[in-house]
Every structure is written in structure tokens, then in C-alpha cells.
């Protein structure tokens, strides 16, 4: 599902964020990317969802070479990748409903289908009574669930989560991790980047460790 071959990413002339990273994530896998701050976890995820381009090397997602996709192909590919960020990245002036509906509006679905799917997703995430709220009116855990809703509503092939519990207390962390596991069980490939050792304790999932831009 995700293949990286000798990927390098350099910012400026000296700052190497990724050095010779090769990685393969199979369809339906649940993988943790871990390492201290500055290890290159976020850069790696950004390359997978094309927010950054590799300086050299090849990155393939669902069989597509990310160095060669057109603007339109990239947009279509991103619709099949759900992304969750530590700072949620919700649109503060749109309601919970509108934030979750965004991915479906972009896909051009009719309003009746959008309404139905958004209601289902919000019910699943326990946010049915919050659909008219704006993100700043919600707690951190609720905002992360909204972000998760936006990421999964399109039934993505891949779900990327960058420090999804970084801003949450332990109870909410468990809640979000439980949701990620449920999403994985339904068949989605999940990649979670985290520096939290708590999350990795007792896990049987594959763990990829990064240090100073290299896989160790």
C-alpha cells in the first residue's frame, strides 16, 4: 500500500529530515512510526500524503509514484487517504457537520447522501449532539474525533495519524486509540506517528523507529 525506496528529504542545504528511508506498509497493516521529536516522523507522513515531495528516492502509494502524479491525480489520491493531525486542523468557522462533510462535498456527492453519511459517522464517533457546534466550542478529545470523522468518512484506504493523542489526556488517548483500532479492523491501513512510549507499550503492532531521519 505504501512503498518508500531510498527516500531523502532535505530542507535548505544542510537540514536533512529523512536519510535513505525505505519502508513498505502492506494493505490492512497497522504500523507505528516512532522516535523522538525531530526524528522525521511528520516529514515521512507528509511525503506519503504529498504535502512534501522527496528530495530524492521514490514514494509509491496505492501503486502510484508520487513524483509523477498530476494535480488532479493527487487530489483524487488524497481523497483515499485520511489524515489526522495533532493540532486537529479543523476549520474553525465551519460547524462539526460542515467539517466532517468537507471530504464528501469535495468528492461531489449529492447533499442527501452527504447528510446521511455525516449523521452516521457522527453517531459512530459519539458526536451526534454536537453537529451544530463550532470546533472552538469543543474539548480537545471532541475536536480530535471530528478530525477523525473527516478522515474516515470517505472510507479511505489509508489513515495517517500524526501524534493524534499528543494534545489529549490519558482517558481521551485510549478513546482515540480504540477508534483507530476499530477503523483498522474494518480494513483500513493505519499508520500512526507518535513519540509516546505509553502508546507502544504492550502493542503487538509493527513499530518503525526513526532517529535523526534514519530508520533504526
Amino acid at each position, binding site marked *: 500500500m505504501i512503498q518508500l525506496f531510498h527516500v531523502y528529504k532535505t530542507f535548505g542545504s544542510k537540514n536533512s529530515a529523512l536519510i535513505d528511508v525505505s519502508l513498505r506498509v502492506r494493505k490492512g497493516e497497522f504500523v507505528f512510526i516512532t522516535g523522538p521529536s525531530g526524528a522525521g516522523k511528520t516529514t515521512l507522513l507528509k511525503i506519503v500524503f504529498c504535502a512534501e515531495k522527496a528530495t530524492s528516492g521514490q514514494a509509491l502509494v496505492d501503486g502510484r509514484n508520487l513524483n509523477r502524479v498530476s494535480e488532479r491525480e493527487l487530489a483524487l489520491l488524497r481523497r*483515499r487517504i485520511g489524515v489526522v493531525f495533532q493540532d486537529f486542523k479543523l476549520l474553525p468557522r465551519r460547524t462539526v457537520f460542515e467539517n466532517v462533510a468537507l471530504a464528501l*462535498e469535495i468528492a461531489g456527492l449529492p447533499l442527501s447522501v452527504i447528510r446521511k453519511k455525516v449523521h452516521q459517522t457522527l453517531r459512530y464517533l459519539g458526536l451526534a449532539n454536537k453537529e451544530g457546534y463550532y470546533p472552538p466550542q469543543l474539548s480537545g478529545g471532541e475536536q480530535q474525533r471530528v478530525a477523525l470523522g473527516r478522515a474516515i468518512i470517505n472510507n479511505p484506504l489509508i489513515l495517517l495519524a500524526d501524534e493524534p493523542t499528543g494534545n489529549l489526556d490519558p482517558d481521551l488517548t485510549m478513546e482515540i486509540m480504540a477508534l483507530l483500532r476499530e477503523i483498522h479492523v474494518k480494513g483500513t491501513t493505519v499508520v500512526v506517528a507518535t513519540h509516546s512510549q505509553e502508546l507502544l507499550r504492550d502493542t503487538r503492532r509493527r513499530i518503525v523507529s526513526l532517529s535523526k531521519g534514519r530508520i533504526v
Partner: protein
Amino acid sequence: MKITFLRYSIRQAMANIFNNRLVHLIGVGTMAIAFLIFDAFILIFVNLSYWTEERGRLLSMSVYFKEEPDRIVLEDVQRELLGFPGVTIKRFISKDDAMEDLRRQLGDEAGLLDGLKENPLPASLEITFSRDKGGDSIPHQLKRRLERINIVDEVQYSQEWIERFQAIMEALKIVGIVVGGLLFLAALFIITNTIKLTIYSRKDEIEILKLVGATNRFVKIPFLIEGSIQGFLGGSLALILLFVAYMIVVARVDLRIGFASLDFVFLPPECIVLLLVMSSIAGLIGSTISLGRFFRI
């Protein structure tokens, strides 16, 4: 473009304007000032053209007679003249009237005329000729026709004035296009930067939309609609301000050049519509330029 997408874009543009009303208000105000300068120039240009046109429209013509015509001959000539469109007979000047006019003009020197044995001045008819009812070729035709009448000695009209008037109109047009074009470019520059500020305040939103799979078109079109609406509102506000300023000027200032009182007219309706369309297009162009830099990823 799908109807649902267009509906989404318009709805989104309206919601964005409402949600960012302060930024938009500042933007519309800034645009209004930029458009006001441009519109004021157009207003002055329209009036200059109107005044020049007005002065050039009425052409004076004098028909000189070989001898004093009797009433019947005069009526015949007058009938002939009135057969031409746009001709108005101002007055008949007999030989005595002409002499009287000359005496008045000479003032203290009028005594010089006392030595004349007979009045050498010809009788004449003063006529005015309205150009917009005829066309530029009619003065020539009229002159030729009148000179064929036996009693008519000479017909004079100011060809020079027509030529000068045409040159002024041509120069005005060139000045209008150059200055108007430069002012429009200046307005466009201000608008582009104003819209850039509006868009910059929402760069996070653009980033999020792109990351969830929006195509450039999907992100851009609501912004383009917003830019057009902003341009239209800025253009409308500029016209309202210009109209208020116009009313104040008209009420307080008596425009006179020499003895002729000049009408200071407001912009004609077709010009207002054109300026509003131009304002919307300026908003659209401004948005397009401003959006360019946000679509590199």
C-alpha cells in the same frame, strides 16, 4: 461545471464573506477608494467629452448676399435653408444692421466710417447648423447648394473649427485611454494586494481543503466568486460616493466658461453598468493573481 458544485461555490463564497466580514469590509473600503479615483477620472472625462461635443455640435454659418434681398427672395433662401436637416436661422442682418454692428464694435473709432459714400457691407443670414442631425459632409453640400443661388455671394463656415474640434476629440480619447488605463492598473494593483490579505488570512483553510483532496478548481472558485462580489461591492460603494460628491459639486459650484454655462452631468446609465462590470472583473483578476502563490503544493 456541475450545478451542485456551482451552488456549493456560491454558498461557500457568501458564507466566507459573512464569516470574514471585517476583513471583507476593509477590503471593500480599500477597493472603493481605488475605484473612486478611477470613476472620478471617468466622470471628468465624460464631461469634457460632452462639453467639447456640445461646443462642436453647433456650427455657425454665414450666407452673404450680393445685394440687399427683398422679402420674397429672402423667404425663398430661407425655405431652401430649412430644407436641410439641423439648420436653424438665427437672424437676417441687413446692410444697415451690419453697419450698425460694425459701428458698435469700433466704438470711439466709429467716426472713421463717416467718410464712406455708400455702405460696403453685405447683407447676410446667420444660421446655425446642428452636426449631430446631419453629419460632417452636410456643411459642404449646403455651401455648394447656396452658392448656386444667384443672389448669394459667399457662404462661410469655420472648417478650421471643425478640424480643431475633431483633433481635440481624438486627443481626448487617447488621453482617456492612457490615463484611464493607468488608473485602472493602479486600482487593480491595490485590489490584488487587498485580496491577497483576505486570502492570506485563510491560508490554513486552503491548506486543509487541499489536504482532504480538493482540486485547485474546487478551492479557487469560491475565492474567485468572493473576489467578484468584493469588486462589485467596492465598485458600487465608489459610485455612491462619487454621486454624493457630484451632488455637492453641482449644488455649490456654478460652472461657467466665458458666458456659457456648462452642464455638469453624472455618468450615463450604460457607463455605470460598465464600471460595475469592470469592478467585478477587477475583483476576479485580483483574486486570480492573489491565489496563484497558494497553489504550489
